[in-house]
């Protein structure tokens, strides 16, 4: 879309030429339409509003179906967003509709951070689209675009003015998404009160610089109706999925003891106007605005954050490639630097470990020597003792031999004596 716009604006050199016959390129829009119809359309709506204000009911009423809804409790600790995707079809046009609802918005006692969750969600969708765009091998035509195209902000029908939370939230969101404020449960405000309420809301938005979505007035076919609708903002809506018999047909309505509020009666509420503006007339414009304005803003901010610029410090235009190369070099350089650092640290650590180990080795060695010394000392002592023991044994054995000898001698002496005695004795015989 962007490239074709640029092409048309920049053609100073093309001369207008008149045709002498029918060429046939007037079928181009039809070709485009055929192609888009085959592809199918995609639309994402974000509904922000307090719990129970009627977001799901309004979506059901707008798209004439029954999306699976469940009542949320008032006691959620923080704001969450719940997205559900549906495939709808009307005649031969397929629509992939994603409805994102806030859960627990406005219920907490401290609502300082409530808007942050919504902003984060929207940024996440932009980010994933940006990532896809920056990929080397990308498939944008197949990509399921999850960026929020329209944001319906549900204002509680107090009849006085906006709530402080509404103001704070809308201010944070107006540069990120197309905001369409609606007054919910409008069957509680009478006509005169409604007129005053709408004026008050718009004046508060203007005085605080909140940029809500303006229906485009540059295309003559729709400019008249769009300008009129711009003056009726915010739309006062009533939603209902129940039907009541009026006359002889069944219409969507709410039955009260004092009357029946018909949803599609323009005298009762602005539901029909909302449906027309949101779906019938401006859906494509909403998608375009999201892509060309909000997404481009996000992309620019993000890339600038990353360090990319369109002009370098000498105010010469710098292409993305150069910046990218520069960035890459810088990154590689840093990587190398880091690697060096790591290597040095590694070497140092190794050295430290080595010295430690050497120390330990030395210590061990010392211990070993000491032990060895002790051992040899002991051994010496032991040897000494053995020697002394041996000496003792020797002396003892010598003594023993000597005594034995003595004994032997005395014995032989005795024996000799006895022999002598015997001889003597026998001699006597």
């Amino acid at each position, binding site marked *: 879309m962007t490239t074709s716009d640029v092409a048309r604006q920049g053609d100073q050199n093309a001369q207008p030429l008149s045709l002498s016959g029918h060429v046939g390129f007037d079928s181009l829009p039809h070709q485009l339409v055929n192609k888009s119809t085959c592809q199918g359309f995609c639309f994402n709506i974000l509904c922000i509003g307090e*719990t129970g*204000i009627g977001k799901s009911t309004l979506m059901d009423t707008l798209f004439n179906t029954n999306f699976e809804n469940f009542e949320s409790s*008032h006691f959620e600790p923080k704001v969450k967003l719940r997205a559900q995707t549906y495939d709808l079809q009307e005649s031969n046009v397929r629509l992939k509709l994603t409805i994102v609802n806030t859960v627990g918005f406005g219920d907490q006692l401290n609502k*300082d951070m409530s808007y942050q969750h919504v902003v984060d969600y929207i940024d996440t969708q932009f980010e994933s689209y940006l990532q896809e765009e920056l990929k080397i091998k990308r498939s944008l035509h197949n990509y399921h675009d999850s960026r929020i195209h329209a944001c319906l902000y549900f204002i509680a029908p107090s009849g006085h*003015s906006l*709530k402080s939370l509404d103001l704070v939230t809308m201010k944070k969101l107006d540069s990120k998404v197309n905001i369409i404020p609606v007054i919910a449960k409008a069957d509680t405000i009478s006509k005169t009160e409604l007129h005053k309420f709408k004026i008050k809301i718009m004046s508060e938005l203007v005085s605080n610089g909140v940029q809500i979505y303006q229906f485009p007035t540059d295309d003559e076919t729709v400019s008249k109706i769009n300008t009129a609708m711009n003056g009726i903002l915010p739309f006062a809506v009533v939603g209902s999925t129940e039907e009541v018999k009026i006359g002889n047909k069944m219409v969507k309505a*709410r039955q009260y003891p*004092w*009357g029946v*509020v018909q949803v599609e009666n323009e005298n009762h509420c602005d539901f029909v106007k909302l449906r027309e503006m949101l779906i019938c007339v401006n859906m494509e414009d909403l998608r375009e605005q999201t892509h060309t304005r909000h997404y481009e803003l996000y992309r620019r901010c993000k890339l600038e954050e990353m360090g990319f610029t369109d002009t370098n410090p000498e105010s010469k235009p710098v292409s993305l490639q150069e910046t990218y190369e520069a960035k890459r070099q810088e990154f590689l350089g840093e990587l190398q630097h880091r690697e060096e650092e790591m290597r040095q640290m590694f070497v140092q650590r190794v050295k430290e470990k080595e010295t430690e180990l050497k120390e330990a080795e030395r210590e061990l060695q010392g211990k070993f020597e000491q032990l060895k010394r002790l051992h040899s000392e002991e051994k010496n002592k032991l040897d000494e003792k053995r020697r002394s023991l041996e000496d003792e044994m020797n002396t003892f054995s010598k003594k023993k031999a000597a005594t034995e000898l003595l004994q032997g001698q005395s014995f032989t002496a005795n024996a000799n004596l006895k022999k002598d005695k015997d001889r003597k004795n026998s001699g006597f015989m």
Partner: protein
Amino acid sequence: MTSNTRGKSRTPRSDDGGEGKEYVGFATLPNQVHRKSVKKGFDFTLMVAGESGLGKSTLVNSLFLTDLHKDRKLLTAEERISQTVEITKHTVDIEEKGVKLKLTIVDTPGFGDAVNNVDCWRPITDYIEQQFEQYFRDESGLNRKNIQDNRVHCCLYFIPPFGHGLRPVDVEFMKALQNKVNVVPLISKADCLTPNEIRRLKDRVRAEIDTYGIKAYQFPDCDSDEDEEAKQKDRELKESTPFAVIGSNMVVEARGQKVRGRLYPWGIVEVENPSHCDFVKLRTMLIRTHMHDLKDITCDCHYENYRAQCIHTMTSKMSADKRVESPVPIMPLSTPDVETEKLIKKKDAELRRMQEMLQKMQQQMQHEQNL
């Protein structure tokens, strides 16, 4: 009249219809009370609380059929981002059939309007306690002739009808105030709910009040000797709380009459039509039948609790400080002087001795049992 009347019996008066019955005459007491109270006049303080834009001022105007808020300045959303709660008072004297009522409406602009509403009910509880303290001082003072009773008798709390039930701020507020004032929860702007939705929301709110243990104002049960119609009415009243109300400052023409109502392209909501909303029930309850009960509960229950708590904190502080000076003149009773302390100590010792003896005896008995 009863058989207990003895002694001073008078001759029966012919216009009393009691032939031959003894007659004393104190049956006129209610009339005397009526006469005196009409002469004295009544006062009532009503507080309204809830987020802005829920129709509090309109409802008060509808209830008392006046316009109390002729020129008030509503803040813009920007101003309300970090607004604190204010307390404003409006006092009017109204009269009906000779009965004078001094009505004070206490408004709480800014409640729940800021982005950060933690503890936003603090100014409100402080105000209520201030009124109690003021009355406490006056009551304990020397000259009690002209005591002004500024205590809050009833607090109407407005619950928005746009949600599925109570929200955290509603629960916290009602719990903070349940012991200080009679809290009457109301479902405001009920013209945004169909009858089914109203019933569901009421059931939901009643269940949540039970779950969170909130003590809202309970209607007293009517006497058992009332007739069946009154009992039936009482039951209906109790079953339709919290009341779903609609208020209006404008008079419109409906069904040939001029009524207070709201004009829509699809019909006219009549404020006083019981099938449209519970406004009539609220008015009956608040003004016609239970106004005095609300005052009684405030005086007998909430104020007495406050007073007891106040005295208690004062005495505990007193014994901690050991000083005799007191802010309120009737305190001397609670400072124990030396004599009483001695007595107390003696008694304490005696008690302890007795306990010991008892223990000994018990032990002996057990011992004998075991033998």
